[in-house]
């Protein structure tokens, strides 16, 4: 009568870019990974991205996010990777078991290797009126727009001018919403210039050094109060939706439950499972990749997923040392390239700190 339990060589938690690439790389080494994802579709956040992606040819750059997701899912199918959708991993126990709630019921998996590619969650901040209908995370707005084809509002204010905020602002415009502005507390955007320019080009004002004070409304958002940080001037934007894009937080809970050492890096989103350059956590047999290992780009997540799988395959004896080293060298060089630009200096700093201990 106990919970059904299944042994397997490798479980990947999360079917986003990191998880799917980990599974693909594992398949190349002859390991059939089982990929678990709580969503109904594979591809993680890529699935709802309609913009073309940065990165290189190794990452499907130039294609739209959902196209990259579809290619990876197909690749997994060809490689015999099983992706179990609508399957939430409820817990990861010190003994190594994963507790899964899926269409088959609730059961345990006992993998020899676990790759945690659980992604990141949207950061939230409380302000007066934040519980009003119409206030939502930018990611949630994106799901409404691009998955369900529903406009979050007719006139929207975006809070946060990082890449997520700028991309979603653009997508709101694409779907026919008006964007009353993008509000950003800093002096400039943390996002890519091109994203900022695309939004500006459509006539959307970007308010730097401004912060959101409150959302007003009775049954839903009717207005947002915004203050200019330097002048203290408060203005009311009449909008019916408010999107928050104020950062992402690595989802490190499963790693913490498993007993992995947790590190902290503000530049990477906060708490995350400590890992070495090869994506091994402090617990043997547990690897981490993608935003769960520190919030970065999808292209980075893909290569991290591959790195994690190389480490796992090597540890499982499926990949000999020389082959693993060769693959790793290539992937690390690629990652170094992706993190090579001036916009990634904070990432390099945080990674150096993490690697130092």
């Amino acid at each position, binding site marked *: *009568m*106990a*919970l059904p339990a299944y042994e397997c060589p490798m479980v990947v938690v999360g079917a986003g870019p990191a998880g799917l690439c980990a599974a693909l790389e594992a398949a190349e080494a002859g390991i059939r990974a089982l990929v678990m994802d709580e969503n109904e579709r594979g591809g993680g956040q890529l699935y709802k991205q309609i913009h073309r992606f940065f990165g290189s040819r190794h990452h499907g750059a130039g294609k739209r996010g959902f196209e990259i997701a579809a290619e990876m899912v197909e690749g997994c199918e060809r490689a015999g990777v099983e992706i179990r959708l609508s399957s939430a991993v409820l*817990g990861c*126990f*010190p003994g190594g078991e994963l*507790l899964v709630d899926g269409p088959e019921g609730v059961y345990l998996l006992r993998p020899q290797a676990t790759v945690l590619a659980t992604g990141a969650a949207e950061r939230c901040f409380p302000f007066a009126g934040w519980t009003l209908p119409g206030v939502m995370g930018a990611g949630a707005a994106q799901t409404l727009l691009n998955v369900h084809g529903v406009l979050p509002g007719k006139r929207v204010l975006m809070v946060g001018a990082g890449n997520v905020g700028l991309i979603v602002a653009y997508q709101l415009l694409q779907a026919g919403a008006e964007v009353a502005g993008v509000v950003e507390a800093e002096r400039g955007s943390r996002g890519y210039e091109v994203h900022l320019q695309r939004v500006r080009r459509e006539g959307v004002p970007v308010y730097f050094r401004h912060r959101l004070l409150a959302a007003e409304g009775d049954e839903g958002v009717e207005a947002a109060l915004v203050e200019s940080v330097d002048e203290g001037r408060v203005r009311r934007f009449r909008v019916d939706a408010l999107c928050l894009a104020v950062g992402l937080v690595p989802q490190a809970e499963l790693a913490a439950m498993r007993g992995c050492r947790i590190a902290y890096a503000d530049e990477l989103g906060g708490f995350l499972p400590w890992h070495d350059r090869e994506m091994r956590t402090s617990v043997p047999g547990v690897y981490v990749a993608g935003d769960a290992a520190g919030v970065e780009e999808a292209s980075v997540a893909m290569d991290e997923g591959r790195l994690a799988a190389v480490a796992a395959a090597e540890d499982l004896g499926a990949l000999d040392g020389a082959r693993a080293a060769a693959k790793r060298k290539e992937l690390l060089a690629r990652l170094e390239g992706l993190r090579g630009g001036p916009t990634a200096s904070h990432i390099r700093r945080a990674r150096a700190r993490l690697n130092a201990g």
Partner: protein
Amino acid sequence: MSEILSSEVVIVGGGVIGAATAYFLCKEGAEVMVIEADDLASGASGACDGFVSLQTKMPGVHLAMALESARLFPSLAEDLEVNIEYNPCGGLMLATSQEQMKELRARAKALKSGGLEVEMLSPAELKEYLPEVGKGIKGGSFCPQDAQVNPISLTLGLAQKAQEMGATILRGCQVENIVVTNNRVREVHTTAGNIHSRRVVCAAGIGSNQIGKMIIVDVPVLPQRGQILVTEQRDPILKCLVSGAEYLGTKANIPELLPTDEEAAKLGLGFTAEQTASGNVLLGSTREFVGFDSNTTPEAMNAIARNAMRFLPWVEDLDVIRSFAGLRPCSPDGLPILGTVKGVKGFYLATGHSGDGVCLAPITGKLLSELVLDGETSLDIEPFSLYRFK
């Protein structure tokens, strides 16, 4: 060491026992310092249910003590500024076999003669208390004196009140050594400095063994894990505490009431259910000796959920939102360890409550206060002496 600290009494442990002892000592005007390695209610007191259960006590001194403690709760609820969510709701213990009914009946008789009100109920009579019970339920016993309390609020409330009366509470402060000279406690060395004190109360729960070692006394307290599932909040659906007879069986080691299933026996599984003031239903629990491991396990989560549906089928629809495990400080016979130790004057034990800490906290605090300040107690605590163990 920036300053030299001193206190008339030092209490080691900021759980419900330490907080209650501080409260009662402060009421008598004593100068008290509570040392807590982590934070208030960070041990078993913050990871348990709120059962103030009298019908699970052993007839005799154990029950007598529990009855005394129960009498103190209403006045505490009055006196403390924190709402401790005290609710004299009564408690139901359900039997799944005629053998269990027989045993419960015999116990009810013994408990009644010890001064407790207990009533045996047929399956039909259970309807008055519960909307629906499992088909295998053969009846149960109801104790109107059983009650419920929020153990965290109780601990925080007691500590806060003690603080108001002058107690000092040091959190994140670990005891490093207890200095004994001429057979008397003199100093407590801590990570926050040395504290001069001639009286030290050990209310350290599962850490008591370690504290005892500092004065070369073996305090036989072992951590026993109890796992609990927390469900989403619902409007009131449970009018009283509910438990299964096996809960008592595993608690008091009564052969007739032990679970028959091998896995359940291994986990020490016994059903408990309580709906808190906030509407969550707490479902328990297990009794496992696994050292200091306070993780929850998938086996126990599954077994608790399954067992809960066996007693109260309608819980199947509730969402579990959290699980937690507490480590009960268990003594070899399941009764608390209270009193002095031989050869070390000024050292007092208030530990080993074995899962009865919340229920027995008020009386323990009161008795310890009497013992520390007067050297004698209003209730004979000799049966709880450390020296009852061979």
